[in-house]
């Protein structure tokens, strides 16, 4: 019919492999069953489902989770959701009793700050004080009374104790109350009242970190067993002998503030005291000294004797000490020091932390010769911050050993943990029929006690304090007790059939005892309200007859030789670390993770050795060594600790921090993230660190922390210490170049200060490759840190952590160099081991105007604000970590895991104004952006421009030395603008031209210009 058209030869030829394109490729029907009529088959169903899904999606809506808003039923007038309320109270973290302001937000305290109106602490607050807030939310605290370890009701426990006490009273049995120093006048009075109801009762006070020898010495020289108040601010020459008064000794916040006053270079006129320090280990006080000398443990006596002899010679006093052999330190500088002290008579200060009464007597003698009593040392208005009497403790131990004690109450102390093995308190206490502990959270003593009557956390309690004569303050509760705890005063009063609550007891005591000593004439209501509102009041002090004249005191015996071990042998230095003190805050993860200011070790204690000592023993950092005292009880007298190599330490000293190895630190086993290669958060003993308190020596009526001879033997095991600053970083930069070293920290002798010209401003700004499109015409925030004031006490580190919800990452993560602190304190060593100088440099985001981090972020998660802040936007961050790599200061912190705490109670401490960061995002110092914003908003609400005096960052607020200043660099009237013109002003890594917003003031040493020492570290 028609012609056949073909498309290819194969088609035409009909090759069998040729597939005709016009044929259905799949001629056979698809292997799918046709749907039966009237039914919906599989395909139909799928279609229907698919269409249905598509339709649903097309018309679909989206909803987030429902959140609820539950208002108050009846809103109290002073409570405003979202606004913080501030209460003044007193810190109970140690017996220094600093003034506090508590930030209370929506009914819960979230931040502690120093109370600027408090006469002692004057606005500063130490790291321990800052961190003690977390103790409030500790879910391991006792929830109620315990009877033989089992929860019981208060009525039950009260009934038992009252009947047991009645029995003791009836038969005239011996009742002993063992406490730490009690600074609360109400509690003291109540204790007095309580003890008076017993025929044979005694109140024994001891301090885990004892200063008993000072009190004993003053009893001997001044006829009054009292701890004088030291006024470091009035001292032009300070000599410290084994006294870490800036770190842990008695009242460090108060002393730091005073010390800083005496070294205020920017003041008018500038002041710069001269500070000489003699010590065996390295303390932060030693790091600030103008002349620091290493002495062997136990050499305090000879040193002070030699000093006293030199001073006495100048005073024209014939004192036989001149015959004492050569001093353990070079004579010429000692002469120089004596000369300086003598020249500054009445404005000098010699302090010693030595626990040998004879040594303290010489110390008093020197101060007396120098006329310091009544000037820099006040014995008439003494301090009550250390009231312990070690001799009484010894007597109690003897009584216990004799089985002569029928009832023992223990409050505010943990003798089963912190007493030396010689006293063997734990064994002795078991023999007491009635052992009552008032411990608020589980401790070694409470574990022995038949009854535990837990005390409140101090933020839950009404109480008071008189840390120094004439300075009284109120402790007021800032939230209702979380558990069923009861204040000690209430417990004692209850056992005396006095059912008044603590508030009434305190108020009644104030009305009866403190109100009569008031200075302004006012009614009691006003007096009370002022005290509660301001937190502290000044009171009159009854002038007491004391042997302040002192001249009548006999000349002390020279101490020719201390307990110093023979040449070559090692001896112990047991010291409270800045974060742990005596271990009472061992449950506090903030403090456990706080790097020690000197060793930078976290989550562990270690035995520090000088580099030479370590070399001679053949041990390296992290080697576990066995420390043996050869004492009577071998089990308790040997410890196995990792070695830490500490430049600046005496070659014969083994320094071990106290406060570790506390029971209840086993909770940190699972601190930090858990994953394939994670390690437990505690040591091999299941606890954080090892308790060194058993090695304390009880001798001559005092607890002695230094001088015990030990032998050290390597065990062959190793532990990697969780340090935040590695040891090799100390050593290696010195080898960098011969021409000069890294200009990271600047240091200068005081003589060079006046010669220094202010740096010309033009050289700092305006050096750039490109046009400056960002003039910062309005406000530009800046922060200036005075390295001369900074002592490295690390209060700012914890303050920052609390304020900014910085997580605790645990020992394993710190070991992996992943600590999260936004603010760290870098410490740099200079010079050789004997005369090592240390500089502390708080390092935080420098808020560079030409920030290297910002340029490299791909998603604009870190950019600059109009007022000069380097902003980090967590919710925008995708976590490339490029910014952290490119940060020359390495201040950026990455959330490697979900570090957010799972503990619902502990999470109550979180600051609701700061985002809790998820894993995978970068974070860093925001210069407390939330505070800056709050200041701006409240200023606007008041209708006035925000001034930089309205706002302080958390670190600035807490700094006891006032070393940190925030302000507007563009405001010529601001403090920062003035400090930026100071000749000491410098920026770290200035050469990079990143134009930091954070600047530093150089360290000044009060010593003669020494070209070898001046310059850069």
């Amino acid at each position, binding site marked *: 019919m028609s012609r056949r058209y073909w498309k290819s030869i194969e088609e035409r030829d009909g090759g069998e492999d040729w597939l005709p394109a016009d044929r259905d490729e799949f001629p056979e029907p698809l292997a799918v069953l046709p749907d039966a009529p009237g039914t919906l088959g599989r395909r139909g169903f799928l279609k229907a489902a698919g269409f249905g899904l598509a339709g649903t999606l097309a018309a679909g809506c989206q909803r987030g989770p429902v959140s609820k808003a539950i208002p108050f039923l009846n809103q109290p007038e002073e409570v405003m959701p979202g606004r913080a309320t501030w209460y003044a109270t007193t810190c109970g973290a140690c017996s220094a009793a600093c003034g506090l302001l508590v930030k209370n937000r929506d009914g819960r305290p979230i931040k502690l700050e120093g109370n600027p109106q408090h006469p002692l602490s004057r606005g500063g607050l130490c790291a321990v004080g800052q961190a003690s807030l977390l103790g409030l939310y500790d879910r391991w605290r006792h929830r109620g009374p315990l009877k033989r370890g089992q929860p019981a009701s208060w009525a039950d426990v009260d009934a038992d104790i009252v009947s047991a006490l009645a029995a003791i009273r009836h038969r005239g049995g011996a009742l002993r109350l063992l406490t730490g120093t009690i600074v609360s006048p109400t509690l003291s009075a109540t204790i007095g009242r309580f003890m008076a109801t017993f025929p044979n009762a005694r109140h024994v006070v001891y301090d885990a970190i004892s200063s008993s020898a000072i009190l004993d010495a003053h009893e001997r020289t001044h006829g009054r067993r009292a701890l004088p108040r030291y006024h470091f601010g009035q001292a032009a020459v300070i000599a410290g002998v084994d006294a870490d008064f800036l770190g842990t000794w008695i009242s460090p916040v108060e002393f730091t503030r005073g010390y800083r006053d005496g070294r205020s270079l920017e003041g008018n006129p500038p002041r710069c005291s001269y500070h000489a320090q003699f010590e065996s280990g390295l303390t932060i006080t030693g790091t600030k000294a103008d002349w620091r000398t290493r002495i062997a443990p136990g050499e305090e006596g000879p040193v002070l004797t030699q000093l006293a002899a030199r001073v006495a010679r100048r005073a024209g006093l014939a004192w036989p000490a001149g015959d004492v052999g050569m001093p353990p330190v070079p004579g010429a500088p000692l002469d120089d020091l004596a000369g300086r002290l003598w020249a500054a008579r009445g404005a000098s200060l010699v302090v010693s932390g030595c626990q040998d009464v004879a040594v303290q007597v010489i110390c008093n003698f020197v101060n007396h010769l120098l006329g310091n009593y009544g000037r820099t040392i006040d014995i008439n208005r003494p301090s009550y911050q250390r009231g312990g009497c070690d001799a009484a403790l010894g007597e109690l131990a003897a009584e216990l050993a004799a089985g002569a004690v029928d009832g023992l109450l223990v409050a505010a102390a943990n003798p089963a943990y912190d007493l030396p093995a010689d006293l063997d308190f734990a064994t002795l206490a078991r023999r007491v029929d009635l052992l009552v502990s008032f411990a608020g959270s589980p401790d070694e003593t409470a574990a022995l006690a038949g009854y535990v009557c837990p005390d409140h956390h101090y933020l839950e309690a009404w109480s008071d304090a008189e840390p120094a004569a004439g300075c009284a303050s109120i402790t007021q509760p800032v939230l209702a007790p979380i558990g069923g705890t009861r204040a000690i005063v209430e417990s004692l009063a209850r056992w005396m059939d006095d059912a008044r609550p603590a508030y009434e007891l305190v108020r009644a005591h104030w009305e009866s005892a403190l109100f009569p000593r008031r200075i302004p004439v006012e009614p009691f209501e006003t007096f009370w309200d002022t005290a509660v509102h301001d937190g502290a009041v000044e009171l009159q002090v009854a002038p007491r007859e004391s042997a302040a004249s002192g001249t009548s005191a006999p000349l002390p015996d020279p101490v020719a030789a201390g307990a110093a071990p023979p040449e070559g042998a090692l001896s112990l230095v047991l010291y409270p670390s800045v974060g742990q003190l005596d271990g009472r805050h061992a449950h506090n993860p903030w403090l456990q993770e706080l790097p020690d200011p000197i060793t930078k070790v976290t989550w562990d204690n270690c035995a520090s050795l000088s580099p030479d000592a370590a070399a001679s023993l053949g041990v390296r950092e992290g080697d576990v060594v066995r420390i043996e005292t050869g004492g009577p009880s071998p089990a308790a007298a040997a410890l196995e600790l990792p070695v830490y190599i500490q430049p600046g330490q005496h070659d014969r000293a083994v320094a071990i921090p106290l406060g570790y190895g506390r029971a209840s630190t086993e909770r940190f086993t699972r601190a930090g993230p858990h994953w394939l290669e994670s390690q437990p958060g505690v040591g091999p003993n299941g606890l954080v660190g090892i308790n060194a308190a058993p090695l304390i020596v009880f001798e001559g009526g005092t607890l002695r922390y230094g001088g015990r001879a030990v032998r050290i033997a390597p065990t062959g095991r190793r532990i990697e210490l969780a340090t935040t600053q590695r040891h090799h970083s100390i050593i290696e930069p010195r080898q960098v170049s011969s021409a000069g070293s890294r200009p990271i920290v600047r240091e200068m002798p005081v003589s060079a200060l006046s010669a220094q010209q202010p740096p010309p401003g033009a050289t700092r700004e305006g050096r750039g490759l490109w046009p400056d499109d960002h003039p910062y015409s309005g406000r530009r925030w800046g922060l200036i840190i005075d390295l001369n004031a900074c002592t490295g006490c690390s209060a700012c580190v914890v303050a920052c952590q609390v304020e900014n919800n910085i997580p605790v990452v645990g020992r394993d993560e710190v070991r992996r160099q992943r600590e999260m602190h936004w603010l760290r304190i870098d410490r740099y060593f200079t010079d050789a081991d004997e005369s090592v100088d240390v500089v502390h440099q708080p390092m935080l985001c420098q808020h560079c105007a030409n920030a290297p981090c910002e340029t490299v972020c791909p998603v604009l998660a870190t950019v600059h604000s109009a007022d000069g802040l380097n902003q980090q936007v967590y919710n925008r961050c995708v976590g490339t970590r490029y910014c952290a790599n490119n940060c020359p200061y390495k201040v950026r912190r990455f959330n490697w895991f979900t570090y957010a705490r799972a503990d619902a109670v502990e999470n109550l401490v979180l600051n609701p104004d700061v985002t809790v960061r998820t894993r995978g995002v970068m974070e860093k110092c925001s210069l407390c*952006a939330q505070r800056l914003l709050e200041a701006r908003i409240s200023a606007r609400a008041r209708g006035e421009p925000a001034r930089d005096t309205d706002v302080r960052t958390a670190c600035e607020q807490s700094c006891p030395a006032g070393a940190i200043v925030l302000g507007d660099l563009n405001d010529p009237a601001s403090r920062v603008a003035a400090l930026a013109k100071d000749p000491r002003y410098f920026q770290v890594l200035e050469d990079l031209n990143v134009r930091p917003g954070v600047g530093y003031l150089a360290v000044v040493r009060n010593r003669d210009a020494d070209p070898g020492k001046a310059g850069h570290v």
Partner: protein
Amino acid sequence: MSSRLVTVVLLVGLSYNLLAVAPRIANWRLPGDHTDYEPAQPVAFSHRVHAGELQVACLYCHFGAERSRHAGIPPLNVCMNCHRFVTAPIGAVRAEDVLAVKENRRPLRIVSPEIAKIYRALGLGDNLAPDPARTPEPVAWITVHNLPDFVYFDHRPHVAAAVTCQTCHGPVETMERVRQVQALTMGWCVNCHRDATRRGVADRSANASIDCVSCHF
């Protein structure tokens, strides 16, 4: 055969669906945008009545807006300032009065069921006195205007700058039940801040920052 039929029917259905949806495409929202959220509340509180008809000022109840980050949901004691006396709509009370006169008795106290929820929450008895048998229990309102946790919004500067409540919350005084009118996305915030800086707010110049740190820290 039937399979084809089903397909056709479903296709028609889908196209109808799409047609119905098409006009709303302009209103399509991205994830996280909860515009038009209008949840039912535990108490059927009418902003139309209170803010619209009765002209109660916004800040009378939401007094936190001037003093705190949060405007706040008013505590029930604020409600009781009026509702101690106002127990029901006026119409219901009058009707009872008329009825009482008619039946020659004292008029009963009329309590509307929604207002009764307030009394119940406060633990009040029938005579509006505290009833020990009833435990007070706060009202759990459902938040309408939600912001993510990483956004810090503060009412104070906005109130201080005379930004009207309606700018962000819409004409609440006309709403029986509160509905989210604005998108409350970051772009919406930022654009308003840009406009405010450019044109001012309420005839005053404003400096509304668009720095990240104004909201994220």
